[in-house]
């Protein structure tokens, strides 16, 4: 009996094109869009080699320090290359700037060095900072020379001092140790929120199957209710069928995102599966609650789940990850009650953190969330006789 009902619930779900589109196809389509739009963002946000021009006039040629420094910074074979430099006449530099081919150009004058840019921006700031540094190095030279002279060495070998100064500048070592966490790709959040969306959309499956077996919700339910099968058996079978359908959809989404889109969910496969299971359970519980608690037609109920899911996903960063961060930081309680956010945060903690306490906090929150919703639903599901149909 259980199997019989299970089989047909399953069949019914899979033949419903609407359901399959929203729970199976839509997340996959969206994932593809995300991939297309986001795949380059982080690469582009890294510091690129900046196109600049230097006006090749007498002053520049004579300024040894500037000359040398930009030679190093513009060296195509060096790992340290920062600029792609074009040495041009002033008119050409101006034209390059208006055409937007360079971020700015350097014009060395007798009394000052000038950087000309078209707008403010990060590249422009870097150009300015670097030029500042080179000019400051000139200053340092003067200081060093001054210092040596003060030290009372009369036999001044300017060449030697000069060499020493350059050596001092070059040898000044900046010791920084990068202790950043390895996984810093924030676009992952988009994909995690997508998984969360798929989990919660799965609730529509639960909704649909629970609707079909309640006498006060659908005509089919009346028929089921007058049959000699206990209601709990039927509901369990239908619910399980929709849960498994949900998991199949999720598995397809995972396979697609992992193998086609190359999304990184961290390395702990078992924990990922656990999170997906409880995430789907949360979605299922929403479906059951809406299916048993609201008495409207099925389309309206589906609408409730779709918009609730979208709202939850919005809060958990699907339309811009800043949203999740702002809420986490300022009104954390909202995201502690938001199943989408719990799922996203669970994946995030697996991906970003080495410790698991935050992950398990999210998993347990999801289980509690699901249990509360299911308990509320059971209250109305337990009824077998109704005051009105």
């Amino acid at each position, binding site marked *: 009996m259980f199997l019989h009902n299970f089989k047909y619930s399953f069949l019914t779900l899979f033949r419903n094109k*609407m359901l399959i589109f*929203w729970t199976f196809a*839509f997340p996959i*389509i969206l994932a593809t*869009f*995300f991939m*297309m*739009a986001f795949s*380059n*963002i*982080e690469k*582009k*946000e*890294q*510091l690129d080699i900046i196109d600049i021009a230097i006006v090749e006039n007498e002053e520049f040629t004579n300024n040894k320090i500037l000359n040398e420094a930009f030679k190093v910074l513009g060296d195509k074979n060096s790992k340290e290359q920062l600029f792609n430099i074009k040495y041009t006449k002033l008119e050409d530099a*101006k034209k390059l*700037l208006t055409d937007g081919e360079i971020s700015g150009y350097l014009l060395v004058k007798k009394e000052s*060095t*000038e*950087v*000309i*840019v*078209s*707008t*403010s921006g*990060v590249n*422009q*700031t*870097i150009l*300015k*900072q*670097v*030029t*500042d*540094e080179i*000019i*400051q190095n000139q*200053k*340092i030279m003067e*200081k*060093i020379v001054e*210092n040596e002279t003060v030290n009372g060495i009369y036999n001044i070998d300017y060449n030697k001092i000069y060499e020493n100064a350059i050596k001092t500048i070059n040898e*000044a*070592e900046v*010791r*920084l*140790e*990068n*202790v*950043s*966490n390895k996984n*810093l790709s*924030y676009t992952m959040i988009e994909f995690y929120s997508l998984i969360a969306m798929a989990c919660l959309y799965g609730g529509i499956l639960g909704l649909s199957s629970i609707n079909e077996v309640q006498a006060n919700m659908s005509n089919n339910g009346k028929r089921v209710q007058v049959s000699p099968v206990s209601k709990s058996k039927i509901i369990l079978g239908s619910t399980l069928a929709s849960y498994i359908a949900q998991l199949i959809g999720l598995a397809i989404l995972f396979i697609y995102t992992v193998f086609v889109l190359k999304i990184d969910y961290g390395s702990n496969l078992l924990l990922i599966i656990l999170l997906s299971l409880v995430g789907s359970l949360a979605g299922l519980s929403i479906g059951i609650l809406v299916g048993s608690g609201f008495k409207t037609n099925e389309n309206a109920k589906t609408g409730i789940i779709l918009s609730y899911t979208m709202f939850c996903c919005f809060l958990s960063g699907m*339309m*811009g*990850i*800043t*949203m*999740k*961060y702002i809420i986490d930081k300022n009104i954390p309680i909202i995201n502690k009650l938001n199943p989408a956010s719990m799922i996203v945060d669970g994946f995030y903690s697996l991906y970003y953190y080495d410790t698991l306490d935050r992950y398990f906090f999210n998993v347990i929150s999801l289980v509690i969330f699901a249990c509360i919703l299911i308990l509320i639903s059971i209250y109305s599901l337990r009824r077998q006789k109704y005051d009105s149909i």
Partner: protein
Amino acid sequence: MTVFNTFLKILNKNKFIIIMYTVILITFAGFNMKTSDNRLSFVSSKPDVLVINNDENIGLTKDLIEYINKNTNIIDIEDKKDNINDALFYREVNYIIYIPKNYRKDFLNGLNPKLKIKTTGDYQASLAEIILSRYIKLANIYLNINNNEDEIIKNINETLKSKTNISVTSKLDTNNLSKATYYYNFANYSILAGCVYVICLILSSFREEKIRKRTVISSTNMRKYNRCLMLSNSLLAIFLWLFYVLLSFIIVGNIMFSIHGLLYIINSFIFTICALSLAFLIGNIITNKNAINGIVNVVSLGSSFLCGAFVPIEYIPNSVLLIAHIFPSYWYIQNNEIIKTLEVVNIDTLKVIFINISVIIGFMMLFTIISNIISKRKTKTK
């Protein structure tokens, strides 16, 4: 008139959808456009940096922090649980500097102690690193010359004073133009999702098999009927467009009153009309309301993501942009981006914009022709 009245009734039932997409537009437009002054002089970009100082805040350490403070945005984050790591991941800070205990002492003793840092690895972080490295380099150099702390600080600050002169050539109000571009790019989604969806729903109500049959056999002139339906929907689209334009005056502000603003408005108008023809096409092909919901979602999200309505267009891979050419949104957004950087407005510079607009009009005609063919076929065969 009957048609128009019915139209208004159906529209009234669907008003929630329009309100929803408008709210989304306002939320995101407002959310993503931080206000900043409009200055034509150079403004250094300042990366967001967090300094965690475990050393005494005196002498060299103090001066380093002051220097960082001057050249970056110092972000203050409570050092609690995962706060700091979260802030780095969500890019509230680009760069975190940990100053260890006894840093100053060790440094003055020539040990050149290590600074621990955390970085997001983007260009903001690179800039922060350039800024930080400079100071330490200078400190190291002056330490070699003279290890008196006060002297070192004095020398460093003196050196830092010498700067390049920088001048900005562009007379464009880049900041506000970016805002306007952002707004109109995002409007691509609102127009496609909201306007097209509602029009499709209205059309599908009118085109439902039984209702369609009833109107075909009624005494109403079919041509007149269709024209009235078309007019009502056009009115709706234009009304929505006007509403979004007005909204842009409120959200974006003064820049909308310039020639650039006018170009944004013209561009969005052409696009709205194109969206209208797309709505007619979809509404003609599909009458199942559930299917319309799915298709409009896929079309609007797809063209918004692929063409750069959500993500700045320079971040989108070239291969994707190549595909994006098949959407009218691509040409519309291209135009917005061109307007943003338009220095001089003359026939020459406007040529590109006109070409893009003609492409959008081309799409519009294509959609109209196809939907006419389909609509004719349907009236006859069924």
